[in-house]
């Protein structure tokens, strides 16, 4: 099938896509955007996290056919040209990157968290990043990076990217899912 999808603000069209392939392989193998990583392919590790219509999802579980007519923002869409986004800069400075495989997903998840909660508690950070696994850092430097990005207003810089609400969806304009409040106990 032909898939029309907006990626990082640009309208892209790709022909001869098998509808059953994943959005992740569409992005990586056809559209030349290898930032989102292919790790578990089961939705468990979060390395492939991208925005789909303004909310973070695991691209490995979305069929390419389901992306038709929708809007995607990948980790490549966070920086402003060569200038890193504050969230990316904070990960560099805090030493939150070791092997780097989980990093693109964590950047998108952190970007989303800070756009919803400008100064998250440690509990909120842990819960928001629960779907992103890192096997190198032990997470402490990642938490440092999120706190650092928050102090620099990492979530405020580009809120125009986010849909103001999920038009046509229930709860549009209502508070967003910020995870399990039990985890802050």
């Amino acid at each position: 099938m032909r898939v029309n999808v907006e990626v990082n603000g640009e309208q892209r069209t790709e022909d001869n896509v098998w509808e059953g392939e994943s959005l992740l392989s569409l992005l990586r193998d056809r559209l030349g955007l290898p930032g989102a990583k292919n790790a578990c392919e089961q939705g468990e590790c979060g390395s492939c996290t991208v925005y789909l219509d303004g909310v973070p999802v695991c691209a490995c579980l979305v069929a390419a056919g389901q992306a038709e007519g929708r809007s995607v923002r990948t980790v490549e869409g966070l920086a402003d040209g060569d200038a890193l986004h504050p969230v990316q800069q904070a990960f560099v400075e805090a030493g939150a990157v070791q092997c780097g495989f989980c990093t693109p997903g964590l950047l998108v998840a952190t970007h989303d968290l800070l756009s919803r909660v400008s100064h998250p508690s440690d509990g909120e950070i842990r819960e928001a990043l629960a779907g992103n696994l890192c096997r190198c850092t032990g997470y402490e430097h990642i938490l440092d990076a999120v706190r650092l990005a928050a102090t620099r207003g990492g979530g405020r810089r580009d809120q125009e990217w986010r849909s103001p609400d999920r038009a046509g969806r229930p709860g549009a304009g209502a508070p967003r899912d910020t995870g399990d409040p039990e985890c802050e106990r």
Partner: protein
Amino acid sequence: MIPFDYQRAEDTRSAVATVTARPGAAFLGAGTNLVDHLKLGVAAPDLLVDVSHLPFDMIEPLAGGGVRIGATVRNSDLAVDPVIRQRYPMVSAALLSGASGQLRNVATTAGNLMQRTRCPYFQDVTTPCNKRRPGSGCSALEGYHRDHAILGASRHCVAVHPSDLAVALTALGAVVQVEGVKGARSIPIIDLYRLPDDAPQHDTVLEHGELITAVDLPALPMATRSTYRKVRDRASYAFALVSVAAAVDVERGTVRDVRVALGGVAHKPWRARRAEEALRGAPATDDAFRAAAEAELAGARPLRDNAFKVPMARNTIVATLRELTRREEP
């Protein structure tokens, strides 16, 4: 992954007709469980009919005071809906205790109900499993079964149902709306799910091609005082060892009415009717809560490595009811 065809459903009627007519076809919601199964080889449909965009994405009031949740409402949207949070907090709590933000953002109401067990043998095509391949045997019976059932299991299957949402809906007595080629029908959620008996390949009573279009919540005023408590191996992003959904109506220290359902203990969300009966009219005390929990769990038949779930379920019931009844009376 075995190749398959993909169709975007035009409407409910044609989607139902297409899947019904083709034994190898399956409905595709968000795919957070099904796509995983395609990759693992657990499921091998030859056609996926995508129903995730059908117009069932509303949460609407019902005549009589209940609420209708559309089948394609996303878990994240349902969890933060103001009406759900205020009138059915256990539903919101159950959703937020499950999966991760990335998964809740796409997962649908009906897909959540139709997800399949995470028994490791069900998901490993190299091992016998009666649920995946009927008649091949149950590997969990003598194998890894720490996470498995203590109630209602059979020698054919000891798996548990993984959904948190379904446990809350079972406590509430929700009704599932279904479309099939023979027309629509309403199924109380307590009757939707099956115990394994000798046919564990069937999780539910739905026929091939039947599609869930909505879930109806009853008015149930006491659900404003309800919650969901989930005990798991880590703080977040894990399936339940034991979970409890409960709602309670207390007046002057006496339980007038109560709803209790358990997750992580059986092949289906387990409505704790014996505990409910023991509690109606009883004082709202730990002793009464414990006695009710023990009445429910008297029928527990734990396996070699999951006997810990019996006291864990008892203690979680007591703790949940204590939390609910010690709040200010509304």
